[in-house]
């Protein structure tokens, strides 16, 4: 592609940061939003969310005094809400609600403004002057956090005796600018490698079960072989930035300790990789034989708070697998099922929605390509006519040639102008319709949240059925023991041990049920929030898209109207 395409992309990138128009206009009152406090306790989530949901309304765009109904004065930023980075035709100066979402964070108001140059004289109602309302610093909220990922560097693995030569890996500089009080400072930077991101993601998945956690970038081993190193690194850098921004945009996750540590702790990332697999592998290996032979106590209540994984969880996995099979076959269904129907319906709706989003995002891509092609071909045609004009002028013998060359020149330059407008229209369209792409990622997060619920339910069901079989065993032993006069010492001992196990299992069951209930609640809140945000996001997207189309169509119409006027002497119908 031409060099200017790269410009477009980098503009795309920086504009994404810039396009933080965020307006909310209530009937008068400024919003005061309570921070979701730093308490990670999940039970606070609900109360926090309800506070926010009460105070939050979709924006009402107010028509200002001046003529353009699409302009509205800014009022203020919503606090503690990261606005979407999705531009909504911000150049058009329209105002929209930026709902909280998984998107990017507020930008600094001193960033460079739109790449769209050359405001056309007269013409469009939507002037592109930089009175683009969102830019005024005074409208900035008092609360922001912005993350940038930059500066990829190669580093050497510390000498590892097992692998000769030492391998290299890439680290990225992660810079945070914030005024949130939970963070130590206002501006800090750490270096992290991709493995650290994986660790962060895993830890978040453990701590925030039931939440719609933005999916992390892929490991994509194959791609890293296939792509040029630079391209791959750049792609990954962009993906990391997007991911981290989404994390801080999430109202609950942004306050997580794991994230804070990740963003702030200098040096090596002090987060243990998943509490299960790697670090405990040795542990698990030792305990494995006991587990396999059904000893070593019941599942501890700590462990039930997590889904069964590999390593030391073989036994649990087997049990839960057995349970899920028996569930499927309509075996004993524990009573924790009644809401399932509603849940299943919701799940299906989500699935349908996901399919339609996929479809729409594909068609959006085609639309973007078609607009791009139109612009390109229009430009190429204009250039061909410019060459013709030059040629005619050089070779002109007759006045009729000069006149024709003149007409041609107007035509050609207008075609080139129109072509530029198409390109600009398109780069804006991409930003708007990107909302659809973003939601694909979010749908995945929803799937994750639902999966958390299912696996938690499975754990509960497993424990319940284990309890019931333990109980049955105890009964049998007691019955047998009571037949023996004076007690059966060995049996009595077994019964006692069994009762111990039952007690532990009972505790675990209660913990598991609590966990399950909590996850259900998290699910519900998240889905509610997602639905609300999605509604606002999609409305914004549509509005942005439409305003953009209108603006550029007007510009293009002006260009051609002028040419039609200039050639009006030829205005009779051709035969």
């Amino acid at each position: 592609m031409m060099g200017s395409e790269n410009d477009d992309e980098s503009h795309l990138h920086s504009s994404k940061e810039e396009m933080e128009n965020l307006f909310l206009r209530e009937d008068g009152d400024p919003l005061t939003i309570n921070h979701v406090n730093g308490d990670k306790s999940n039970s606070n989530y609900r109360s926090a969310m309800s506070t926010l949901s009460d105070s939050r309304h979709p924006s009402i765009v107010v028509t200002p005094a001046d003529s353009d109904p699409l302009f509205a004065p800014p009022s203020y930023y919503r606090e503690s809400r990261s606005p979407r980075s999705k531009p909504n035709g911000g150049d058009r100066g329209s105002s929209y609600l930026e709902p909280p979402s998984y998107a990017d964070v507020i930008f600094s108001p001193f960033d460079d403004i739109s790449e769209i140059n050359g405001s056309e004289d007269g013409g469009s109602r939507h002037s592109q002057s930089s009175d683009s309302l969102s830019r005024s610093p005074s409208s900035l909220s008092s609360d922001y956090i912005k993350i940038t990922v930059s500066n990829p560097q190669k580093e050497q693995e510390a000498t590892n005796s097992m692998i000769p030569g030492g391998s290299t890996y890439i680290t990225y500089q992660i810079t945070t600018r914030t005024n949130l009080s939970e963070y130590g400072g206002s501006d800090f930077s750490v270096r992290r490698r991709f493995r650290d991101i994986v660790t962060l993601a895993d830890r978040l998945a453990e701590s925030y079960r039931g939440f719609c956690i933005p999916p992390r970038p892929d490991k994509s081993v194959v791609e890293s072989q296939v792509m040029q190193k630079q391209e791959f690194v750049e792609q990954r850098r962009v993906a990391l930035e997007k991911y981290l921004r989404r994390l801080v945009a999430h109202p609950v996750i942004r306050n997580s300790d794991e994230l804070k540590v990740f963003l702030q702790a200098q040096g090596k990332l002090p987060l243990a990789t998943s509490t299960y697999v790697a670090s405990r592998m040795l542990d698990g290996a030792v305990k494995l034989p006991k587990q396999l032979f059904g000893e070593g106590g019941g599942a501890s209540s700590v462990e039930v708070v997590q889904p069964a994984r590999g390593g030391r969880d073989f036994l649990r996995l087997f049990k839960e697998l057995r349970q899920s099979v028996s569930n499927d076959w309509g075996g004993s269904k524990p009573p924790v099922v009644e809401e399932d129907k509603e849940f299943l319906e919701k799940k299906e709706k989500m699935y349908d929605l996901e399919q339609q989003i996929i479809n729409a995002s594909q068609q959006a891509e085609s639309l973007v390509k078609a607009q791009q092609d139109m612009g390109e071909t229009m430009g190429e045609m204009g250039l061909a006519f410019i060459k013709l004009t030059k040629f005619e002028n050089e070779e002109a013998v007759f006045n009729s040639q000069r006149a024709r060359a003149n007409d041609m020149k107007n035509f050609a330059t207008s075609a080139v102008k129109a072509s530029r407008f198409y390109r600009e229209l398109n780069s804006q369209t991409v930003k708007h319709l990107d909302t659809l792409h973003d939601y694909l990622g979010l749908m995945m997060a929803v799937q994750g949240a639902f999966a958390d619920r299912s696996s938690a339910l499975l754990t509960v069901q497993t424990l319940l059925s284990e309890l019931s079989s333990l109980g049955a065993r105890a009964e049998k032993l007691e019955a047998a023991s009571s037949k023996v006069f004076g007690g059966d010492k060995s049996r009595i001992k077994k019964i006692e041990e069994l009762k111990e196990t039952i007690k532990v299992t009972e505790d675990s069951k209660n913990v598991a049920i609590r966990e399950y209930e909590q996850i259900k609640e998290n699910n519900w809140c998240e889905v509610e929030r997602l639905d609300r945000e999605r509604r606002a996001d999609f409305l914004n997207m549509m509005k942005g898209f439409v305003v953009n189309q209108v603006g550029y169509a007007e510009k293009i119409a002006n260009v051609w109207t002028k040419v039609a006027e200039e050639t009006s002497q030829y205005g009779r119908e051709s035969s």
Partner: protein
Amino acid sequence: MESTEQPRNISGSMQSPRSPSSHPYLSVSVTDPVKLGNGVQAYISYRVITKTNLPEYQGPEKIVIRRYSDFVWLRDRLFEKYKGIFIPPLPEKSAVEKFRFSAEFIEMRRAALDIFVNRIALHPELQQSEDLRTFLQADEETMDRFRFQETSIFKKPADLMQMFRDVQSKVSDAVLGKEKPVEETTADYEKLKHYIFELENHLTEAQKHAYRLVKRHRELGQSLLDFGKAVKLLGACEGEPTGKAFSDLGTKSELLSIKLQKEAQQVLMNFEEPLKDYVRYVQSIKATIAERGTAFKQHCELSETTKLKEINLDKLMLTRSAKVGEAEIEYREIKAESEEATRRFERIVKRMEDEIVRFQEQKTEEMGVAFHQFAKGQARLANSVADAWRSLLPKLEASYSV
């Protein structure tokens, strides 16, 4: 026999006659394409309606049925008889099979044929042509007979192509210094030839892009249609107000898709086709250049031969040979031929001078119209796009308060 009359000022269908009764006029229209015949032999016939008050013509109005090959016949005859004149070009013969009978193609061809005949009718010399009269008036059987008779004698397009190539190769040979060309080498004429050849290149490129632009319109229309459908489906998954908003968006998108398809057709007919016509015209000029080259060659060669014969004759006269009588006859014959060749050549030169002026003026006018039509169409399209999207905004605004 070539026409040497003074051209009358006959107005055609493109100009309104000042006073219909007294002012001579000749107006032709090509209309009503009808598909005739079956299978491979199917073809389109057109109604050619002539309105005139010229005495050479039968009556004020005459309607005949003609097919494409009849037009080709006319063009070939004129090309033979009116050397030096840029014969108006015909639309291409061949077309992709499945496209050959599409409504759009037929309409484009009809329009092009209409322009073709009218250009002839407007041309001061060509309008006098007997062949034109035959074409406009002869009944169908007579026309068929003429067509079959003449096609074998006169040059076919393939022959013309060969002549183009000859001219081109001669020019390049001269540049490469391969042989001493029997070519005119006046500066002005060289400039003209160079201009024409270069012009064709530029025009062809512009026309190619114009054609691609038509395709882009169609593609954009298609993608708007698909996008609209997808967005409507997405809306069906969502509750209010998003669902309704998506549905409205999708509907507008589908509507605009139709407008884009229409504009695609307009651009094709009103812009790309005139550009193609321009290219064809230039190619016709190249054919005339080839003819001029041939005529020049003949004129030179016969001049040479005449001189030689004259020298020979003088020699024989001096020696009082018995062959003098024979030689004298030969000499006179050659001289007459040579003079005729020279006259033909000079007529071509003169005609071309006038034709070039006419051509440039005509093309300025026609391109002006094409640019105007294109600009109007694009402005109209852009405005309806703006209007359509704009009409959504109040609804979207309303959605926010739901």
